[in-house]
């Protein structure tokens, strides 16, 4: 455990050093070395823990009421460490080159990047409510400073503000959660909290608070409002880390709290499945309507969090109805998807960053044809796109496959409550996967295929090696996890065991009488089948590539325009745009999306000017939070009268409170 803590302190230390030499060009490199060293050191105990060799928890004296510096590393924490240990060093390396052309000092952003990495690792090891909250806050603040890196732009400051407010609404819910739970348990240590018997009402309240608090970080709809603002505003390697990894701490927190709340009643999984369905479907629907590449990816994070929620919901469903197969497959799929999403989403953000870095724009409709000038980026981006759409042989398919399996086993489970939800899970997942595939056909097709739509895209060049290699490694990881699926299942199991070991009812009493390992064997067997098919698919693909490459040998290669129905003067602007490609689908979801169209239609026989523009503002922001905050503003504005700068009245407030306290204290004796 000490090794793990050391691994967290190294990036912090070198981050402080980078802060000291903040004007130097070497600052980000030194900070990145810190991340590499720290993650390397921390990887040792994490791998040991995943291999079943859980290190004893570490307790350091802390002079804080209710708090204790308790750190531990079980299967769940260790598994959630994996995406951090993988993505953070790669994104740090990428960031060094990404930010190299910046004029401003880079010490600050390097320091906060390292602080974010260290705080996420420490958060996963924290075993005390107060400690957890403190680290949670450090994480939120350091990521806030990363988001507002380009703070000379008003929209970036606005995004940072949104993130800060949303983040603190979540923290507020967590504060209440831990205060209530701690009061019930008499301690804020997770060990003691887990042993507390809670009344069903109290457990329900705590669950809802956890969903709000952790859901804000994770991005459950309608708490997701900060994601589409903050991710585009942040530098790309930061978005990769935040979207790929940081939002998963919300999922981790939810799972951790679930292990402490005892046996889940039926209402919870209904809640989670509904949240998952809404987040998944609406997330991808909003993504379809976006023009900004990174904003589109941010909505896909919402979608994938929805998929993870579906998995956890399926797991809870299994717990509630004593269906071990459902439990293991659901939790397993959900938790594995955390890792998978971290890999392909950070890859996508890095790819989007490379595109933005080299073309200077993130607007999909200004791009096009980049596959010719940015081959590495294009290939890694298409791999990640296939993975996020849940297509074999990549990793996204594996975890979604497990959740499908969970859905099917729920349908067959012969338990009255599970069937409808299980069907909803399977059907919803299919819809999400299909829409995601459509969305990435749009994103990849418009950005990388066809002809350049503007001068931005014409001058694009491939990015440097420090940006290419991290993307290549992540793309390899996408394929690797897909092909080594049974092994991946093996490292998920320790995490699943942590989640399902706590609830009261023993599995041995169920009519199935299966243990986790036996179940894992079943799951592994079906995954083996998947791997065989994937391998066959890969071989087929490689074969086709070779045929394409070598068959036309000798014949001459010519370049010619696309057939344009006889039109004499086609231009690149006549290609399909992102909006036109997505229009059938966005029209389908228009009641949710509320897309605004501004158009000046062509008129007359020789139309001179015509424009068409669509905007899709976030529905939750427009119709839920904006009116809510306006209401709060109106209700609370009278309080502003108290805050007017007159010293005497401030003193009067203090005096009144003091005297009242004295009277109350003295009078109550």
């Amino acid at each position: 455990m000490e090794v793990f803590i050391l691994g967290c302190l190294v990036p912090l230390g070198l981050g402080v050093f980078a802060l000291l030499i903040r004007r130097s060009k070497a600052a980000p490199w030194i900070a990145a070395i810190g991340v590499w060293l720290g993650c390397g050191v921390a990887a040792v105990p994490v791998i040991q823990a995943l291999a079943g060799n859980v290190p004893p928890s570490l307790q350091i004296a802390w002079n804080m009421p209710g708090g204790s510096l308790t750190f531990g590393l079980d299967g769940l924490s260790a598994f959630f460490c994996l995406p951090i240990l993988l993505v953070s060093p790669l994104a740090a390396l990428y960031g060094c080159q990404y930010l190299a052309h910046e004029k401003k000092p880079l010490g600050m952003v390097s320091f906060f990047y390292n602080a974010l990495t260290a705080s996420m690792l420490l958060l996963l090891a924290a075993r005390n409510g107060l400690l957890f909250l403190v680290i949670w806050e450090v994480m939120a603040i350091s990521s806030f400073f990363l988001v507002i890196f380009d703070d000379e732009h008003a929209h970036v400051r606005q995004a940072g503000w949104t993130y800060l407010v949303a983040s603190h609404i979540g923290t507020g819910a967590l504060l209440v959660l831990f205060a209530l739970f701690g009061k019930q348990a008499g301690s804020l240590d997770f060990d003691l909290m887990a042993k507390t018997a809670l009344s069903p009402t109290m457990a329900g309240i705590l669950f809802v608070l956890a969903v709000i608090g952790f859901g804000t970080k994770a991005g459950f709809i309608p708490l997701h409002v900060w994601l589409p603002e903050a991710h585009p505003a942040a530098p790309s390697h930061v978005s990769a880390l935040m979207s790929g990894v940081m939002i998963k701490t919300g999922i981790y927190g939810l799972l951790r709290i679930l292990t402490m709340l005892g046996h889940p009643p039926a209402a919870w999984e209904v809640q989670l499945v509904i949240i998952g369905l809404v987040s998944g479907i609406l997330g991808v629907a909003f993504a379809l309507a976006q023009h900004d590449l990174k904003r589109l990816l941010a909505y896909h994070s919402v979608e994938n969090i929805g998929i993870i929620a579906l998995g956890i919901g399926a797991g809870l469903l299994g717990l509630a109805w004593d269906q071990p197969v459902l439990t293991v497959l659901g939790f397993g799929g959900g938790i594995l998807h955390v890792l998978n999403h971290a890999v392909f989403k950070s890859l996508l953000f890095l790819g989007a960053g490379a595109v933005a870095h080299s073309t200077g724009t993130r607007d999909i409709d200004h791009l096009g044809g980049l596959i010719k000038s940015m081959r590495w980026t294009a290939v890694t981006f298409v791999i990640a796109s296939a993975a996020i759409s849940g297509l074999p042989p990549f990793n996204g398919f594996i975890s979604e496959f497990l959740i499908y399996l969970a859905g099917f086993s729920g349908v067959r489970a012969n338990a009255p409550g599970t069937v409808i939800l299980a069907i909803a899970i399977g059907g919803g997942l299919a819809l999400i996967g299909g829409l995601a595939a459509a969305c990435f056909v749009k994103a990849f097709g418009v950005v990388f295929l066809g002809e350049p739509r503007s001068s931005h895209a014409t001058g694009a060049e491939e990015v440097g090696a420090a940006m290419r290699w991290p993307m290549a490694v992540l793309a390899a990881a996408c394929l690797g996890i897909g092909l080594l699926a049974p092994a991946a299942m093996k490292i998920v199991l320790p995490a699943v065991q942590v989640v399902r070991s706590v609830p009261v009812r023993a599995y041995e009493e169920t009519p199935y009488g299966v243990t986790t390992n036996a179940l894992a064997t079943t799951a592994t067997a079906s995954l083996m089948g998947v791997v065989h098919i994937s391998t066959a698919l890969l071989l087929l693909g490689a074969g086709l590539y070779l045929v394409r490459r070598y068959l036309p040998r000798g014949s001459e290669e010519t370049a010619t325009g696309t057939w344009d129905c006889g039109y004499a003067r086609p231009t690149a602007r006549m290609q399909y745009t992102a909006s036109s490609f997505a229009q059938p689908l966005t029209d389908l979801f228009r009641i949710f999306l509320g897309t605004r169209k501004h158009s000046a239609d062509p008129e007359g026989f020789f139309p001179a000017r015509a424009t068409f523009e669509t905007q899709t503002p976030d529905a939750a922001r427009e119709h839920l939070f904006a009116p809510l905050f306006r209401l709060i503003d109106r209700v609370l504005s009278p309080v502003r009268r108290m805050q007017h700068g007159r010293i005497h009245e401030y003193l009067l407030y203090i005096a009144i409170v003091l005297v009242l306290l004295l009277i109350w204290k003295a009078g109550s004796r």
Partner: protein
Amino acid sequence: MTIISVLLILSCLWLLGSSRLHVAIRVVAIQGVLLGVLPLVRSMGDIGFGVGVLGLSTIISKAILLPWLMNTCLRLSGIRKEIEPFVGFGPSLLCGTALLGLAVWITDRLQLSQAQVPQVLLISSFFAILVGLFLMVTRRKAITQSLAYLVMENGVYGVGVSMSLDFPFIVELGILLDVFVGVFLMGNLLFHLDREFEHLDADKLTELSDLSKSTPVVVEAVEENA
């Protein structure tokens, strides 16, 4: 000790009723002397080194140094020598008696663990704290506020001494230092205020606020200035 306590109460009432700044400063100086003598009286002749230092330093700082500082401040800033109250002197005195009642009630309600706490001294100290608060709220000039702050601190000191003489005197000295620094800062601030705004009315500090640009208070203040 009873005499000192009664004198303390009387001095507080005097502060509530006095309209001259010079007089007020002198009264606070007298309070300082009273409080300096207090630990000596309280220790019943068994004057140790610590008690001696405490008493002496109290007298030096509260009765000599701080009043001198304030007088200098008053002279240099050239402000009018009257206290400008929001609540008139008569009503202030009436409120003072009510506060005295409150102090008596609170002291009565307090059940102290030590038996040998002088009740009268406790009452007068609480009274001084309350009067200090009252003066801060109701007097216009910034300098009267630092004066009121001193009165309040005197009360705190009195409570400390009445509770226990064993109260580590280093702590008391620390508080003294705090007060000294506080008043010193206040004095410094006053100079700058004076230079910038040509008045020392704390209620016109709203000019600094950007919140209430349109409220009539500021407009009034600006007009008065003009």
